[in-house]
C-alpha cells in the first residue's frame, strides 16, 4: 500500500467530499462559540479541560465502532462488552473481593476478553449470516450476563493505585485517560490509513461484492474488524472502572448509542465506505460539547439521550436524502 494508491481517489472526489468533510468541524466550532456566548462557565479553561477529559471513554468506544460502521455493519455490543471487561479488570487487579493483584496483566486480560466478544460477533455474522445488529444485540446480552455472573451481588471496589491513578493523575492538565484515548485515536488512524485491515474495511463498506470478486477473502477481515472493535470496548471498560474505582455491570450503559451518534455526526455513513477515525474524533468532541453545553445553559441532563437520538436520525436522514431515489428498498 503506497501512498499514491491511497491519494489518487481522494483527489478525484475532493469537490464532492469537501463540503461533507468540512461540515462537522465547522459545526463543532459554531456550537462551541454559541455555548461560549451563552454561558460564562462554559468558556472557562477548566470546563474545556473537563469536556476533553469527559470525552476520553467515548473516544475509545467510537474508535472501535467506526471501523465496524466503515464496513457498513453496526455494533450494539459495546455496553455488554464494557460491562464484562469492567468486572474482569476489577476482579484481576487489587480489589476487596479476592487476593488477585495482576496489575497490567489484568488490564490485558480484560482487553483480550473484549477481543473474544468481538470475534464471536464477527463469526456469527460471517458464518451464521446473522445481521450484525442482531448478532451484536445478542452478544451485548451475553456480555451483560457474564458481567452479572462475575458481579455476584458484591461490588468489587478496586484498590490498585495504578488503575485508580489513570483517572486522577494528570499530565499537561489532562488526565492520563485522556492521553490513552488520544493514543487510541492515533493507533486507530494509523490502522485505518496504513494497514490492509483499515483499507479493506473501507472497501467492504464501499463495494463488498466487487472486493470479493477481485479475489479478496472478505470474511476474515470482517471478523478481524469486529475483534479490533471488541479490543477498544474492552479498553473502554477498563477506563470506566478506573473512573468509578469499582467494577459495575452498567459500566457501558449508553456508550453504544453515544458512540454511534458521535461517528454518524462526524460524517461516517451507516451505509459504509465513508468517514473514518478523524471524522469520528470530531464527532466525539461535538457530542461532548453539545451535552456539556446544554447542561451549562440549564437543560435537564435527562434530555441527553433524546438529543443524541434526534441527532442520529437527522444525520442519517441528511446523508440518505441525496440518494433517496436510488435505493428504493430500505428495511
Amino acid at each position, binding site marked *: 500500500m503506497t501512498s499514491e494508491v491511497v491519494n489518487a481517489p481522494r483527489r478525484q472526489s475532493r469537490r464532492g467530499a469537501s463540503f461533507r468533510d468540512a461540515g462537522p468541524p465547522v459545526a463543532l466550532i459554531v456550537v462551541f462559540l454559541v455555548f461560549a456566548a451563552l454561558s460564562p462557565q462554559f468558556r472557562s479553561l477548566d470546563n474545556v479541560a473537563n469536556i476533553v477529559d469527559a470525552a476520553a471513554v467515548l473516544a475509545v468506544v467510537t474508535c472501535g465502532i467506526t471501523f465496524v460502521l466503515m464496513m457498513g455493519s453496526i455494533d450494539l455490543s459495546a455496553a455488554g462488552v464494557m460491562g464484562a471487561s469492567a468486572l474482569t479488570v476489577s476482579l484481576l487487579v487489587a480489589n476487596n473481593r479476592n487476593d488477585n493483584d495482576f496489575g497490567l496483566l489484568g488490564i490485558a486480560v480484560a482487553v483480550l476478553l473484549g477481543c473474544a466478544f468481538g470475534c464471536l460477533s464477527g463469526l456469527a455474522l460471517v458464518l451464521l449470516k446473522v445481521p450484525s445488529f442482531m448478532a451484536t444485540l445478542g452478544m451485548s446480552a451475553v456480555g451483560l450476563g457474564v458481567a452479572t*455472573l462475575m458481579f455476584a451481588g458484591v461490588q468489587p471496589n478496586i484498590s490498585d493505585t495504578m488503575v485508580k491513578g489513570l483517572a486522577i493523575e494528570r499530565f499537561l492538565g489532562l488526565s492520563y485517560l485522556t492521553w490513552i484515548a488520544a493514543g487510541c485515536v492515533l493507533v486507530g488512524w494509523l490502522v485505518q490509513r496504513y494497514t490492509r485491515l483499515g483499507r479493506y474495511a473501507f472497501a467492504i463498506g464501499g463495494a463488498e461484492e466487487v472486493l470479493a470478486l477481485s479475489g479478496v477473502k472478505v470474511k476474515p477481515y470482517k471478523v478481524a474488524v469486529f475483534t479490533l472493535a471488541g479490543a477498544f470496548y474492552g479498553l473502554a471498560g477498563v477506563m470506566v472502572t478506573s473512573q468509578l474505582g469499582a467494577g459495575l455491570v452498567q459500566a457501558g450503559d449508553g456508550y453504544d448509542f453515544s458512540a454511534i451518534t458521535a461517528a454518524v455526526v462526524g460524517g461516517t455513513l451507516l451505509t459504509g465506505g465513508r468517514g473514518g477515525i478523524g471524522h469520528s474524533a470530531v464527532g466525539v468532541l461535538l457530542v461532548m460539547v453539545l451535552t456539556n453545553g446544554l447542561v451549562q445553559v440549564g437543560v435537564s441532563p*435527562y434530555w441527553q*439521550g433524546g438529543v443524541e437520538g434526534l441527532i442520529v436520525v437527522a444525520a442519517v436522514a441528511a446523508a440518505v436524502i441525496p440518494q433517496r431515489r436510488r435505493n428504493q428498498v430500505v428495511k
Partner: protein
Amino acid sequence: MSTAVAMKPVHRLTGFMPLIALVALVAALTVADPDFLTQRSLIAVARTAAPLIVLAAGATLVVLCGGIDLSIAALASLSTVFLALWLPELGGLATPAVILVAAAIGAAQGAAHVLLRIPSFIVTLGGMAILSAVALVISGAGTVRVVDDSTIHWLDLYLAGYVPMSAAMAVLVVALIAVVLTVTPLRSWIAATGYSESAARLAGTPVDLVKIGAFCVSGGCAGLAAVMLVSRQFSGGPTMADNLLLPAVAAIVVGGTAITGGHGSVWRSFAGALVVTLLRVGLPIVGVPSAYEQILYGAIIVVAVALTLDRAKVSTVK
C-alpha cells in the same frame, strides 16, 4: 399461514420449533419440579407472559415487513408514565388515550422510516433514546405511583375465576390481529412487502402504508402492554419495561418468524413468548442463577435468527 411454495426442510423444521420447545420445556420443568403443573404456578406464568405476548405480537408485524422495532420497550416504559400521570384526570379514558398516543408514536416512527428512507433499526434505535429521555423528563426520573387504580383494576381480575384477565386480553389481541390479517388482503400485502419489497411495489401493493400501519400496531401494542404492567405494579416508571426488549425480540425469533421478512405469524410469536417466559420462570426452578437468563437470551437470539434466516435472499450480510 405462509405461502407453501417449496418449503425448505429447514423451514418445515423451524415451523414446529416453538411448539417442540414449548412441550419440551413444560415436560422438563414438570420433571424438575412436580409442583410446576399446579394451577397457582400456571396462573403466575400466564400473568407474567401477558405483557410480553402483546409486545411481541405487535412487533411481529414490523418484522414480517422485513424491518425491526427496537423502540417497543422504551415506548412501553413511556406509556406506563403517561398512564400513571393521566389516570387521576382522565380516569377510564386514560387507557384508550395511552394506547392511541403509543400507536401515534409508532406511526410517526414508521413514517420517518418510510419517508426519510432511514433503515428501521436506526429510526427505532433513535426513537428508543428519544422516548427514554422524554419518559425520564416527564416523570422526573422517578416512579409515578398510582393511587386510584379502579379504572385499570379489571386487568388484574380473573376470568371465570381462573384465567387472568391480562392473559385473556393478550390472547384476544393476538387473535384479533390474526383474524384481521386473514380476512383482509393485509396478510398478503405484509408478506409481499417482507418477501420482496420491490416486487410488491411493482404489483401495486401500498408498501409505504403497510409499513406505517405495522409500526402503528406495534406502538399500540406497546401501549397496551404498558397498561397491563401498570395494573399489576400500581405505578409507572421511566425504565419499567426496558428489560422487555430482549425477551420480546427473542420471542419473535424463537417463534420462527424470519427477520428477513415475509415468513412467520403472530401465533408463532405467541408461542415464542410462552417459551421465553417459561425459560425465565424455569431457570430458578432448576437451580440456575438468573444471571444466565441474559446469556441465554443473547444465545437464543443469535441461534434462532441463524436458523430462520432466508438464506436465498441475503447475499451480503451487513
